[in-house]
């Protein structure tokens, strides 16, 4: 996505209205539509976060209030103390997510290199693999995996869940990495080879720096997927101390303790679940979008 700093140029470039030909009225309309769109999209997020800072009485109130009349962090307090404590669950989620990133990177960097730069029949295999992985619902694979893991002691472990998440992300990650390796100009590689490097050195010195953006993208998507995934976590973890955040959030609805769903606490949980995702997006916007594009449009 190239960006042209000249606003006029940019306006012309797209197939939208050229302000020079029809100034004034239509650009106000466009502006209004944009703002309206932003409001519509952001409202659910904003009210959710606002709901999490209402006092418990207010968050249970019927009829509900749009904007908090009270301010209280008690919902977060209750979430913090819920069963094994929020720290445990968030810790587990983070642990699994980082392990997923580690596994994914460790596996797909050499694999991408191999598929892009070596004469393997990998292209066809990769395509078939991607397709199969895309159409088979992974939910049905969970129980066979659980039984396998049980035999090797990987249930209730962050590593086990990370392996599953890595497997789920594998097609997309492989695809991105391979494309990225492929895009590295041959001249660079040939120059390094001429300098007398072996494949490992070529990989590390030439390719790795070149594919860092793709790596970031892959890591990013792996994180988001792992952080949010819940059925696999539900199946693999049957000890409270191993639960991840999505599991606890889903659980907290039915764990009514006879008092009805704790909406405030639920929204606090939702806020905590979406916060890292939004933060990562804001910080790494460039990689996020480029990952989408290279993964999809190519």
């Amino acid at each position, binding site marked *: 996505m190239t960006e042209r700093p000249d606003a006029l140029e940019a306006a012309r470039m797209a197939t939208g209205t050229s302000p020079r030909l029809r100034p004034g009225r239509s650009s106000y309309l466009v502006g209004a539509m944009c703002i309206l769109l932003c409001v519509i999209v952001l409202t659910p997020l904003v009210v959710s976060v606002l709901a999490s800072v209402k006092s418990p009485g207010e968050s249970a109130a019927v009829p509900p209030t749009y904007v908090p009349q009270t301010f209280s962090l008690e919902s977060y307090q209750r979430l913090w103390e819920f069963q094994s404590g929020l720290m445990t669950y968030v810790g587990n989620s983070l642990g699994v997510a980082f392990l997923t990133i580690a596994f994914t990177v460790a596996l797909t960097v050499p694999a991408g290199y191999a598929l892009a730069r070596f004469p393997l029949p990998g292209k066809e295999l990769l395509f078939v693999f991607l397709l199969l992985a895309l*159409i088979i619902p992974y939910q049905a694979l969970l129980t066979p995996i659980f039984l396998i893991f049980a035999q090797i002691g990987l249930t209730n472990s962050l590593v086990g869940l990370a392996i599953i998440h890595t497997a789920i992300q594998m097609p997309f990650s492989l695809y991105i990495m391979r494309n990225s390796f492929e895009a590295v100009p041959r001249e660079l590689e040939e120059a390094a080879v001429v300098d007398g490097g072996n494949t490992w050195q070529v990989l590390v010195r030439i390719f790795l720096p070149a594919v860092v953006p793709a790596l970031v993208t892959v890591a990013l998507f792996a994180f988001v997927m792992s952080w949010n995934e819940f059925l696999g976590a539900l199946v693999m973890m049957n000890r409270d101390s191993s639960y991840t955040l999505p599991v606890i959030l889903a659980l907290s609805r039915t764990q009514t303790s006879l008092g009805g769903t704790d909406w405030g606490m639920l929204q606090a949980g939702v806020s905590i679940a979406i916060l890292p995702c939004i933060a*990562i997006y804001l910080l790494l916007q460039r990689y996020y979008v480029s990952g989408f594009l290279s993964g999809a449009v190519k």
Partner: protein
Amino acid sequence: MYSSRRSKLIGFLYLAPALLFVLAFTAYPFGQMVWMSLHDWSLLEPPRFIGVDNFDRALNDRQFWGSLTFTLKYTLLITPILIVGGYLVALLTAPNTPLRRFTRGVVFVPVVIGLGASSLLWYWLFSPRNGLVNQALSDIGAIETPVLWLGVDADISMWAVIASVVWKVLGFGMILFVAAMQAIPSEVGEAATVDGAGYWQRVTRITLPLTLRTILLVTLFSVIGSLLAFDQFFIMTAGQPHNATATSVFYVYLNSFPFLRLGYGAALSLILAAIILLFTVVQVMLTRRSYA
């Protein structure tokens, strides 16, 4: 420069970790699943080999076909909304002015949060007495009694879920469309304008054809994603009422977990995968034809 054979071997070694990983954690469980589909497997009793009985049962299973119908209905309804909606928003935000770039960024935000978190958020918003949707509708006088959005009426539930998913996913199509639109050389649009073409004429005659490939791609992703829908229904309706909002994958889940009919669930997965494969092949073929 290496000899071809040596090159192949080295390449294979680099591929090996990922290959082993996939074999161990994807291919093997898949094989296991295929094996299970030929059994009556409840986990609590020893598995019993029953050959293709599971598949036979699926053909006559009203609930399975019902779920498939519902999934298709959901897909057919949500896909146009996502494509058309995404495209329109892309048209609106494609130019690189600050406001439009900002809007683009905002519309993309729901895409980055998890589907589970999003579903919980909307589950709360659609709650009959504690949710803000009913509150807002009642405040503007559109409704008198609270609408029971989720779990009571299959169609209303479906639309509620569609609303939440469209909110979450629209930005995905939008971004891809914007990229495709921005790839169109500006001279084309300018030439058309000089020739007197109006805005919508430019859109239909220039933009649409030149972004067709992306449209078809986004459609393909949307369709596959919708056919495999699970999380949103699991959290928002749990298949209610009476499994009328149970998608195909949800039914697979029901069999593989609460019902403890793992063999049957495995068989259903395979059937479902075959159906989706068919869809995909048809769609890709249609795509190819549009270029011919």
